């Protein structure tokens, strides 16, 4: 296998001088070139669009959409140029031998540029997605502040909708990358016994495209905001002002990044598994990444196509979604939700994987029903492509198909329910240790159950008439995505960060973070089921005065939830910056492969490619061997520091 042939790059190489690093390809140049790229392409677009737009689109969208869209694409090219993503293809075209490793040295600069070390990319991902997670969370705080009054008072209507759209789009996009990016890229190669991902440069590219997508989305605020929320419904998107162009390009970037990261993970898992890593021994987290990748690869291109249609509607005056010219607004609904429903499982499956991976470690029991868990994940992945019209139960589009989609939607609860059975079986007669990661995993089941059961109400058309498009839906998907994925992600961060960074995370602060987050999460979102049933539509800044007390209560709880997130942030700063304590190689006494190698993990992961001798869940059996490192003990902690 190629990973075995890849030479160990143990000579860290003399890192270039500070000036050399500064003048090389890095994020500073990327920002500069992105701005230059925007200006040049915007000027070009202005020249091209000058004759078209003013003539053909009276009173419609802003007239310089061609210039703005081209400008944004120009900034993508500038960004990639500044980071050095064109070096490799250029070298190849010029017939020069490209280097196998790029940007891998011991300097801090490697975090600010293209780097082919999957662990560096994963850390970049973690910082980036958490940054945007907090930005989007801040938007949620603003939204809840506005909703303390039953009339629009705090923000102008357009700004409020922009906040809603930024919160939704940023959370959805960044959390899609929030597990597969940091944990997927860090863990998958190590868990399968590889030294790298299949396509290290593409891996780095997905990370830097994700960062750019976040900033492009934020640029919507400079272009007048966008009124459509994260769903971007046409023809409202056709009609909206220029801020929506940022939304379109940002979402497109995320779509491309999702496809690439999915292909990368699939190829890595198929081709780079160590000897003995049979499909039956693959850790369940890797299976979750595989199924998530399948969804990303199949669903995101549909989104990209739909976004491209809106872009062309807005710029070159096509009429995909303009009904008076033969287009159809329902076409957008269909395309968007064909992507959108698999997307929510792109957000759910990684959570399943994290929870089922962590549970055996702290239950001290093997993962119960491993094959069933894998089958459940594949069942969810495949069936998620057959349920999208439940988002359109009230739209009037071929309404006679509604019983079919009601059935498929309820059917998907069977593979989802299997995850609960896995959890139950693993907890049966377990020896639970209540560490912070374990608390988050247990809370996952509590929250996700409420999310799942409220989904049954939404799947039933009669009940959905009341709750569709209301705060009930909003509470439902926050229970599944925040209560499910984000809780699992927090568990994963507390569990793996000691390995990833080499420092322990404070458990006392972690427990404080857990309990405040768990309590205030439930107090924030559970009352919103009632708000929805009592007649509060989503994305409004004014609502019926009778719901005022309820909303004030929810807002206060939401602020406390925000404070809980600050405890999390404080804990990271405390544990990783202020009071650093070295983590041991295997603080949780896990049998999984990533804990059998030294902390911090050397850039080559394994001295020799290990031979896998069992699955990582051999708890309860005395000394069940999991891995054979060949020259046992050669990769000792002492040598790793060399």
């Amino acid at each position, binding site marked *: 296998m190629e990973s075995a042939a890849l030479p160990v790059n143990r000579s860290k190489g003399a890192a270039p001088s500070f000036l050399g690093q500064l003048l090389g390809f890095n994020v500073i140049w990327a920002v500069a070139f992105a701005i230059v790229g925007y200006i040049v392409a915007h000027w070009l677009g202005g020249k091209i669009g000058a004759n078209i737009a003013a003539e*053909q689109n*009276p009173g419609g969208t802003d007239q310089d959409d061609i210039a703005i869209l081209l400008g944004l694409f120009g900034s993508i090219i500038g960004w990639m140029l500044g980071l050095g993503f064109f070096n490799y293809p250029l070298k190849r075209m010029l017939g020069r031998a490209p280097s196998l490793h790029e940007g891998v040295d011991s300097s801090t600069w490697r975090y600010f540029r293209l780097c082919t070390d999957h662990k560096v990319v994963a850390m970049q991902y973690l910082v980036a997605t958490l940054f945007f997670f907090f930005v989007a969370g801040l938007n949620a705080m603003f939204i809840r502040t506005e909703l303390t009054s039953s009339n629009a008072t705090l923000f102008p209507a*357009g700004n409020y*909708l922009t906040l809603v759209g930024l919160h939704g789009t940023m959370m959805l996009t960044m959390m899609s990358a929030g597990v597969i990016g940091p944990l997927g890229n860090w863990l998958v190669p190590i868990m399968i016994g590889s030294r790298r991902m299949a396509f290290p440069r593409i891996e780095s590219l997905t990370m830097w495209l994700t960062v750019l997508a976040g900033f492009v989305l934020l640029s919507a605020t400079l272009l007048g905001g966008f*009124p*459509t929320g994260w769903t971007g*419904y046409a*023809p*409202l998107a056709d*009609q909206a002002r220029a801020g929506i162009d940022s939304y379109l390009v940002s979402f497109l970037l995320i779509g491309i990044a999702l496809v690439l990261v999915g292909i990368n993970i699939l190829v890595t898992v198929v081709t780079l598994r160590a000897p003995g890593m049979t499909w039956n021994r693959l850790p369940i987290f890797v299976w979750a990444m595989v199924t998530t990748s399948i969804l990303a690869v199949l669903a995101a291109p549909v989104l990209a196509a739909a976004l491209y249609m809106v872009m062309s509607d807005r710029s070159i005056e096509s009429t995909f979604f303009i*009904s*008076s010219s033969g287009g159809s*607004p*329902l076409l957008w609904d269909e395309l968007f939700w064909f992507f959108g429903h698999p997307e929510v499982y792109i957000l759910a499956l990684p959570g399943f994987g994290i929870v089922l991976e962590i549970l055996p470690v702290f*239950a*001290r*029991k093997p*993962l*119960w*029903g491993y*094959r*069933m868990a894998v089958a459940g994940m594949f069942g969810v992945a495949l069936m998620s492509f057959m349920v999208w019209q439940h988002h359109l139960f009230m*739209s*009037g*589009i071929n309404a*006679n198909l509604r*019983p079919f989609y*009601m*059935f498929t939607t309820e*059917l998907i*609860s069977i593979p989802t329910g*299997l995850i*609960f059975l896995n959890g139950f*079986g693993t907890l*049966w*007669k*377990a*020896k*639970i*240790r209540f560490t912070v990661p374990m608390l988050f995993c247990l809370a996952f089941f509590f929250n996700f*159950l409420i999310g799942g059961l409220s989904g049954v*109400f939404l*799947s*039933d058309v*009669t009940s959905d*008439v*009341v709750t*569709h498009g209301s705060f009930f839906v909003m509470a439902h998907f926050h229970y599944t995505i925040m209560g499910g994925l984000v809780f699992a992600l927090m568990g994963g961060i507390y569990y793996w960060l000691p390995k990833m960074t080499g420092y322990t995370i404070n458990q006392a602060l972690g427990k404080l973070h857990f309990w405040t987050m768990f309590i205030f999460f439930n107090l924030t979102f559970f009352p919103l089921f009632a708000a929805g*049933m009592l*007649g509060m*539509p989503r*994305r*409004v*800044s*004014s*609502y*019926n005065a009778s719901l005022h007390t309820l909303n004030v209560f929810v807002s206060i709880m939401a602020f406390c939830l925000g404070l809980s997130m600050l405890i999390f942030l404080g804990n990271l700063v405390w544990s990783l910056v202020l009071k650093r304590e070295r983590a041991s190689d295997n603080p949780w006494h896990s049998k999984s492969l990533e804990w059998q190698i030294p902390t911090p993990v050397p850039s080559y992961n394994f001295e020799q490619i290990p031979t896998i001798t069992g699955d990582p869940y051999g708890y*309860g*059996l*005395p000394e069940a061997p999991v891995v054979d490192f060949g020259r046992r003990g050669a990769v000792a902690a002492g040598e790793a520091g060399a």
Partner: protein
Amino acid sequence: MSIAPEKVGRDEPHHGRNIAIIWAIATAIMVPVIIWVVGPHIPPGSLTDDTRAQHAVDVVLTALSIPLLMLVWVYLGYAVINFRADPASGTIVDGPPLRSNTRIQATWLIVSAVLVVGLAAYGTVDLLTENGAGGGQGSNPLAKPSDARSALQVQVIGQQWLWTFRYPGYGGVETAQLVLPVNREIEFHVTSLDVVHSFWAIELGVKADAVPGADNIAYVKIFRKGSFQVRCDELCGLWHGHMNTTGHIVSGSAFNSWIHATVTKYAAVTKYLPPYSLTYYPIPTRNAT
């Protein structure tokens, strides 16, 4: 810290039996509470045939979800209390190396499959017998009420950011007021002039997306006089949250006198309106030249 295998041979309590008993008691208490204490307060009330159907479904689904909720909560609670490691012992003790159990897995699959098929069948029958339960059914509804032919047709037109209503049976008169008669089948035709809206008559239990170029039909029969809120339920731009109005339900005779007064009042305006149609394209969005 050393890792030791579990000591076996101690008397284990019957955990399965204990969990089953606690679950059965909790369920037996909670289900009646849900049906008879909480149930009557579940929205959206009993004003129309649609809300009655929705209320009935919501009570059934809530009652059905209780056993599942209790199963997970009781199991989690029991596991957290009884299946914990002894933190004082200083050694890490492993649990029994159980990996799977075909009988439990098969039972779980069969039970959840039966539940799902039952729910889907119930939902489908309910949808058909309740005339679509107030949801938008598109231009060619499958579930029609028996008296659909004599129904009062009301067209709901959404535009940024207000609702107007046309009564095709009365010369297509258009008003900003929604007045409906009690005890008569009503057939809403929902459409839009610009972007996608959603017509939500909250107390009536009616919800149908207003899509430009499409006709979306929903049925309702109202049982009592009163008023209701109308809100837009699909994000439609700047003043989405303000796109609301209040509708009124009056007796049949009061409705007749109101509609005739309205026809007379707006006669001078109505003739300039485009003729009644299921969809409209009022503003050309493209200049053909």
